[in-house]
């Protein structure tokens, strides 16, 4: 299956919003039980007594939710060659049951690789945004993406 998107399709400066996900208490607790079993993520009373002021998702769960939205929004249709990593990630606000989070993608930079002319590196800013426009997470990630025209000179 030919991917829809190659390196050349990611233009620096472009901002797009994609699909959303509504977080449930059940999924917050299920994730936390496995990967972040602090009582504040497992139990409403502990959450209310905690620094978060109410049951809230593990920050790692928020990262995972965002990854799923990235996949469903465009990455599964992109000629991705994987990611070397995340430059930075900030957790900005608690994620509560019932929050509907929308993915916002900004293309920060797109550069080709001299040593690997078949690919380029795209730096994205990914955010999850609530209906009140507040971002709950802000992440800068690098993705290696195949070039549609390997080695071609870019304008």
């Amino acid at each position: 299956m030919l991917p829809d998107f190659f390196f050349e399709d990611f233009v620096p400066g472009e901002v797009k919003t994609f699909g959303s996900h509504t977080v449930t208490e059940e999924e917050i607790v299920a994730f936390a039980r496995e990967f972040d079993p602090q009582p504040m993520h497992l139990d409403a009373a502990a959450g209310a007594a905690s620094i978060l002021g109410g049951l809230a998702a593990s920050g790692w769960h928020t990262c995972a939710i965002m990854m799923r939205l990235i996949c469903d929004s465009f990455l599964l249709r992109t000629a991705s060659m994987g990611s070397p990593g995340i430059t930075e990630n900030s957790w900005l606000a608690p994620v509560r049951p019932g929050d509907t989070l929308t993915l916002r993608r900004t293309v920060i930079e797109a550069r080709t690789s001299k040593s690997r002319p078949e690919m380029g590196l795209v730096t994205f800013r990914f955010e999850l945004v609530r209906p009140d426009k507040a971002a709950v997470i802000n992440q800068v990630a690098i993705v290696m993406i195949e070039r549609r025209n390997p080695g071609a000179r870019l304008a």
Partner: protein
Amino acid sequence: MAAPSAPAPVAEAREIGRLTFTAAEITRFAAAFDPQPAHLAGPHNAGAPVASGWHVVCAWMGFFVRSHEGAEAEALPGDHPAVISPVGVGFGLKDLKWLEPVPAGTRLVFFTQVEEARASGSRPGWQILRRCNSARTEAGQLVMSFTLSHLAPMVSAEISEP
């Protein structure tokens, strides 16, 4: 209950756990959060998927939290921050690097090391920690690393935040 005290001394790297990434666990995580073909078993990878980078990081967090569950907390009141939030809340991370693929069957060793610890200026009883974290193969090859900054409860003068 002991009074909040000085922040923890800077510690050496500490092993927090080991985990074998099975094909079943890799695909279960991937189906929920990262359904890229490489992470799902199929003919394209001879049924041997590679773990999502987020799976590796989340497994690190599970060990980090569980490594804090100790007898120390049992004497504290049930609503003490060190009981309901033993490792606290994260501000963010920097320089998360996925350096090597983690194919099914790989066994990883997880580590954490405090780089900086200081008392919170605005929240008495809490400290701000910066720690370097990693996962290695049992042969010692570095597979994943990142730096985490977080706000953590202090327990007492005797309890350090390793």
